[in-house]
């Protein structure tokens, strides 16, 4: 497994959030969700940049959702978690679980 295949912390965050949102979401929703769960500031720019990187690595693919004739129903670019992405996420999860075992998290 080459060095380029390890996920950065933020990439893991995005993938995990995407998974939590059912594997199919869009930039704005991802940003809000990650900000809420991660409890730190997340910018829309970083979300899109990360999604693009994840797409290049094959962990995510995009599709354009057509406009719907409702409020907030504009056309959206949605990201879907691929099988490779799911696998990478699981790998990262077990990696961190192992190395962070016994480390108490910071108090909120």
């Amino acid at each position, binding site marked *: 497994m*080459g060095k*380029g295949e390890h996920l950065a912390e933020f990439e893991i965050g995005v993938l995990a959030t995407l998974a939590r949102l059912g594997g199919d979401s*869009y*930039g*704005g929703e991802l*940003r*809000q969700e990650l900000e809420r769960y991660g409890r730190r*500031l997340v*910018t*829309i*720019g*970083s979300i*899109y*940049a990360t999604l*693009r990187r994840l797409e*290049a690595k094959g962990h995510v693919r995009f599709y354009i959702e057509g406009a719907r004739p409702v409020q*907030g129903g*504009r*056309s*959206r*670019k949605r990201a879907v978690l691929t099988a490779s992405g799911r696998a990478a996420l699981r790998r990262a999860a077990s990696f961190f679980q192992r190395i962070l075992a016994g480390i108490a998290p910071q108090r909120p």
Partner: protein
Amino acid sequence: MTAQPPRWARALLDRFAPPDDREFIVGDLDDEFHHRAGSIGRWRASWWYTWQVTLSLPALMRAPRTYAERQRRIPPPMFSGLRSDIGDAIRRARRAPLSAATVVLISALGIGASTAVYSVVHGVLLAPLPFPGSERVVRIENRQPLLANESSYLPSDNWVEFLSWRERAKSYEVFAGLWEGGTTRAFTLADETSSFPVAIVTERFDQLLGVRPLLGRSLQSEDFAVEGSRVIALTERFWLTRFGGDSSIVGRVITVADTMRVVIGVLSDANDYPGPVAAWIPLAPVPGTSVARGRTQMLALFGRLRPGTTPEQARSEMQSLIGETSQSELQKSRVARVIPLSEVLTGSVRPVLLLLSAVVGVTLLVAAGNIALLLLTQAESRTRELAIRLSLGSELPRLARKLVVESLMLAAAGGVLGIVIARWLTRMMIAFYPGRFVRAQDVNIGLPVVLLVAGITIVVGLAGAWPLLRRLRKADLVTGLREGAGGESPRAARVRGALVVGQLAFAVALVAGGGQLARTFVNLLRVNPGFDSRGVGYVNVSASPARYPDRNVLLGHLDRAEDVVRALPGVTSAASVSYLPLPSRVVGWGTQATRPDDVTSQEFAIQFRQMSPGYLSVMGIPLLRGRDLAATDDGSSEPVAIINETLAKAAFPSVDPMGHQIAVQTTAYRIVGIVGDMRYWGLGKPVVGEVFVTPVQSSALQFRSIVFKSSADLNAVIAAARPAIRAADPTLVISSAGTLADRVEAASAPERFRAMLVGSLALLAVVLAGLGLFAVSAHAVAKRVREIGIRMALGATQHRVRASVLRDTLMLGVSGTAIGLGLAWAGSQGLRAFVPDVAAFDVAMGGMVAALFLFVSLASAAVPASAASSVDPIVAIRRD
């Protein structure tokens, strides 16, 4: 009116978001803005929006703008194109084989030499001995400082002392002894008697060395009691070669030194210490042996320290033990030393190896300088090619990778060849080392060394690519292109000049060092050993005391052997002595002498020798006063002795020794003669006091060195002596024989070895430095062809052109030599740390070295100078 996000933030977003995603980013952010505006108010929503945009800008700006860009962002798999790079590198090497071969060869030589030396250093000095606890095994010495030689033993009651120390020394888990004197024994196997080395040990000595029983058992406590000591344990190698690995060997009875011994087991080989012995025999106070009388002069003491005990603690404990058990002032003056076993094994070799490491390192530097020069030159000539490639669209990283691959491949070829050279060199070094190369079996081109070589290779490869890589910057390429037109950049010329001056300096230092070592060796050859070795050979014989308990009978047998040798055809005279000078290892009986007629006198440390009449004349030892010993000096006449000059001066400073008495081991001898000093311990070692008596008038030793003088071929005489002695007396064992001249030569062998090794490396360095100078000179001429052409067209003569080239080269040569001489002078002080008796670096040697390098400089400049002078001006000017 619905709230709108701040316009300027929106404008920023529009401007900097990547076009593909712009509408979606804006849409997402707007959605959330509106949502927030509804819940927390417009101002706070605007504030949030601004914050989001601002912080997103870096990520947005970094995003690739076009599809093409994005494609390129995806890092190409590492190995695509690598194969083509390798192929290109091979093709390029084939097109310029000489240059590639030179780089490979020089790297190989440098890498090979350093790998060889470092694997030897690793195997011998650094790697731990291959058995557990080895780092705690030490040798315990009690050295008598008056004895100006290597022997560290004192006679009388050492056995009792040993037992007492063994009981009281708390620093050791195991405390044992090894008998180091006369340790060959005659094995009678299949009706033939031959001598083999054995290890005579006290209890648990084998444990110290990690020796294990392969068959049967090892020596145990019952074997060290007098009754149970008629046993023997064979070593693996001896068992395989002499008994064919017979598995029923245990329990068999074999005859050793005319004693029947039961084989109790076969032990694994302890290769390094005490050396390749055939068997292990327990040391016990059997009646009739010197041990029973309390004498164990030759007992070397060893121990394994308890974990946590330092050698220093053990040493001070031993020093106080010595104080407690000493019974005379001389004994009290003994100094304790505790030396780790690894140091004992490698102590003699260590300075040579370290010296060699330093020398090889310097040679490597010289070689590296050469490679750097070559690569720099290459770099310049490839500037144009690189510029063209870049302008045609080659990507910088790929180009860089291509250059690195080329360089690494050359370095790798050099590395592989270097390992081959190293293997050969290592074998040569071990084979030619005078004496036994301790731990030779631990020396191999092992993993650590291979890794080191790989590391060096990579460093060399990358370093080689460096000049080219630096030029990849556009600015440098442009200057490079412009340079190619004519002349050369002063900076490059300076770097080149510095490299070559550095090479020369180091080469000079090496040659100077080699010269010093050579002179040391030559000086040693000139030392007068105190005897004349021309035409003198020797045969060592021994009889077993068990067979001849009556000492007169024993002496008779040995005398008879002497008569046999005297009667051989071609032998003009023969005599014998207990110990021949210049032994290859520590033997000899250090003891003390006193003056019985002077109660105030102290004890003197001496070497005690038994010789037969005529020994002095066979050996050409000058008799300065009095007479030689004679056949009439026997058991019924007064004990007499001959002393050497050193002892005469030391023991009788104010009187004439002749006629006085000297007492050795309870016998008082009257001094009847004084002889010249002999260098007993070594050509460079100090002289010790010696006392010579006849065997009859002292204790009977069961061995002798019979020396003979002959004008015939000495080896032929020796060949005739063996069967003659065996025929006359089959109970005698001939342990070794040779010529005295060989012994003298062997005494200077280490110095010769050193000088040769360093000399070869120095020679290599000179050749490399000369090549470097030649390369620089030739390159300079090539670059300045146009300028030379113009000068000649304007009237400069061939002679002047030649002279100018010579002068430029000489300048480099002189600066290099000057710096080198300074280095050499500084280095000669350092050399003294490795070789304490090295000859000095004086003006004469400096002059010779300078002359040598002057010649080398002129020689290197010769060809380029003549090439320069034969430049055709017209052709030169027309050339680009």
